[in-house]
C-alpha cells in the first residue's frame, strides 16, 4: 500500500483550490471539510461551498449577501477587522452555502407552479383562459380545458404565458407543455407553436401585494417584469402530448416568475382562416428553497439578498394548502372545486352561475336548459 500525501498541504493554494473546484457534489465538499483541521480551514477560507454554488448556478452572481436570520451576533465583519471576526464570518458563510448547495442540488423535486398570472392574448375569456393550463386533462366533464390565443393572420406573432412559482427562490429543472388538439373540430387540428422559449425573473414592484394588480385576462405589461434568464429555443412538435423541455442546466429562478414564449404558429382554424396557438397543460418541475432560503430583491436589476433560516426545513413545494410562507393575494378556493390556488374570481362566479366551468364534478345532462351555448362543446370563435 503506497504512502499517500496530504496534497492540500503540499501543493500551492491555487492548485489545491483548482482540485476542489472539480467537486460538484456538496456532500463531497462537506466531507472534505471534515478530514482534518487544515482541510476544514482550507475549505472555509477559500469559500469552496460558495464557489460551488456560483459555478452550478451562475444566476447567483446577483447575490449581494446571505443573512442568517437567527444570528443575533450582529452584522457581518467589516473590512479591516480582526482575523477572528473575519474567520467567524467565513465560518458562518460556509455553513450557509453548504446548506444552500444541498438545497439547490438535492432537495425534493416537485410541481412548482403556484398560479397562472396572465396570457398575452386570450380568444374567449374566461372559457379559454390561461387557468385551464393548470388542469392536467384537456377536458373536464364535457368541457374542453385549454387556453387559446387570439387569432392572427401572421403566423409569426408570438404569445406569452406568465406564471407565478411556489416561491421566490426556486430551481427549475424541466418545463412541460401540451398543445391542445381540438377534438371537436374537423380533422382534430393541433394548435401547437413552432417553438418555445422560457424566461424567468422577478416583478418590478418590490411589494408583494402589487401582484394583485396584474389583472386576469389583460395584456401583461412587459415592463412589469425583469427577466434575468432566457432559455434557448426548443422546437415544439405538433403532437397532442405533454412535451418535456429539459433545460440545459437547472436554473435558479430568483423572483418566482416564469414566462413561456410560444414562437410561431402552425395551425389555422378552418372557420376563420386565422392562426391560433392553444395549450392544454403546462407543468414546471423543480425545487423550492423556501422557507429555508428566502430571496429579497433589492433593486430592479435583480440584485438580491438571501435570508437563511436554519431552523426551517426544505419541504416539498405544494401549491396551495400547507405553505405558510406563501403570501399571495389570490383567494383560496373551495377544495371540492379545485386543488390548487389557480382560479380567479371570474371563474368562480361562472361556476356559481351554473355555467359549465372547469370543475371536477360530474356533469348532469338535465342542467343544460338555460345555458345551451356554453354546454355545447365547441370551439368558440
Amino acid at each position: 500500500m503506497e504512502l499517500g500525501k496530504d496534497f492540500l498541504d503540499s501543493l500551492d493554494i491555487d492548485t489545491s483550490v483548482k482540485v476542489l473546484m472539480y467537486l460538484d457534489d456538496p456532500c463531497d465538499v462537506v466531507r472534505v471539510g471534515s478530514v482534518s483541521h487544515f482541510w476544514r480551514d482550507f475549505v472555509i477560507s477559500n469559500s469552496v461551498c460558495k464557489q460551488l454554488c456560483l459555478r452550478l448556478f451562475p444566476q447567483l452572481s446577483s447575490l449581494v449577501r446571505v443573512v442568517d436570520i437567527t444570528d443575533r451576533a450582529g452584522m457581518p465583519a467589516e473590512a479591516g477587522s480582526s482575523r477572528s471576526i473575519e474567520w467567524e464570518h467565513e465560518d458562518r458563510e460556509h455553513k450557509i452555502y453548504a446548506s444552500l448547495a444541498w438545497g439547490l442540488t438535492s432537495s425534493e423535486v416537485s410541481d412548482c407552479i403556484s398560479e397562472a398570472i396572465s396570457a398575452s392574448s386570450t380568444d374567449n375569456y374566461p372559457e379559454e383562459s390561461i387557468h385551464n393550463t393548470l388542469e392536467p386533462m384537456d377536458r373536464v366533464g364535457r368541457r374542453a380545458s385549454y387556453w387559446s390565443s387570439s387569432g392572427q393572420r401572421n403566423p409569426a406573432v408570438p404569445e406569452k404565458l406568465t406564471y407565478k412559482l411556489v416561491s421566490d427562490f426556486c430551481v427549475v429543472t424541466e418545463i412541460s407543455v401540451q398543445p391542445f388538439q381540438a377534438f371537436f373540430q374537423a380533422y382534430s387540428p393541433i394548435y401547437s407553436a413552432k417553438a418555445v422559449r422560457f424566461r424567468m425573473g422577478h416583478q418590478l414592484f418590490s411589494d408583494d401585494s402589487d401582484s394583485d394588480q396584474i389583472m386576469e385576462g389583460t395584456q401583461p405589461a412587459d415592463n412589469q417584469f425583469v427577466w434575468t434568464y432566457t432559455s434557448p429555443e426548443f422546437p415544439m412538435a405538433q403532437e397532442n402530448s405533454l412535451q418535456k423541455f429539459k433545460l440545459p442546466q437547472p436554473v435558479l429562478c430568483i423572483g418566482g416568475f416564469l414566462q413561456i414564449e410560444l414562437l410561431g404558429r402552425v395551425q389555422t382554424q378552418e372557420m376563420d382562416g386565422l392562426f391560433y396557438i392553444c395549450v392544454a397543460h403546462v407543468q414546471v418541475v423543480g425545487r423550492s428553497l423556501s422557507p429555508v432560503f428566502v430571496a429579497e430583491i433589492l433593486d430592479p436589476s435583480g440584485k438580491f439578498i438571501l435570508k437563511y433560516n436554519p431552523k426551517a426545513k426544505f419541504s416539498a413545494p405544494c401549491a396551495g394548502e400547507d405553505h405558510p410562507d406563501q403570501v399571495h393575494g389570490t383567494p383560496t378556493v373551495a377544495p371540492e372545486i379545485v386543488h390548487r390556488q389557480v382560479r380567479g374570481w371570474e371563474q368562480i362566479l361562472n361556476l356559481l352561475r351554473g355555467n359549465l366551468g372547469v370543475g371536477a364534478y360530474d356533469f348532469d345532462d338535465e342542467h343544460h336548459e338555460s345555458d345551451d351555448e356554453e354546454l355545447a362543446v365547441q370551439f368558440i370563435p
Partner: protein
Amino acid sequence: MSTEERRIVVLRSSDEEIFEVDIDVASESQTIKHSIEDDDSGRVIPVPNVDGHTLAKVIEYCKKHVETPRSDDRDAQDALRAWDTEYMKIDQNTLFELILAANYLNIKGLLDLTCQTVADMIKGKSPEEIRAMFNIKNDFTPQEEEDIRKENQWAFE
C-alpha cells in the same frame, strides 16, 4: 540548425536527463514556448523543477495530444479520453509530481486532467477513506467531529 521540417528542442531535467523533443510537442508547455521564443539559439533548455521520470511522462502526454488532430468526431474524442484515463493510471507520487510539473510548465490540458483525477479520487469517499488515501492524520477531537457531522448531517448519510 538543420533545415529539416521538424525542429527539435533539447530539454534537460533536474536530474540531468536529456530529452530531444519536437518543437510542437515542447510548445504544449507555455513556459517552454516562451523560452524558445526568447532564445532560439538551439541550446539546451533546463527544466529544473522536474525530474527525468516526470518529464518523460509529461512529454508522453504532450506528444499524444499534439499528434491527435482536433476533431468534433465523437469517437475520436472518446478514444482520446480513454487514452487519458489509461495514462492516469499512476501512483500517487507520480500524480502529484505531474501536477507540479504541469503547473510549472504551464500545460493547461495536463493540469486540468491531473486535478480532475485527484478530485475523482475524493468523490464519494467518507472522511475516513480520504484520510487513509492521502495519509492524513485526524486531528479533530471526538466532540469536534460530532459537531461537524451534526452541522451538515445530509452529507454523511
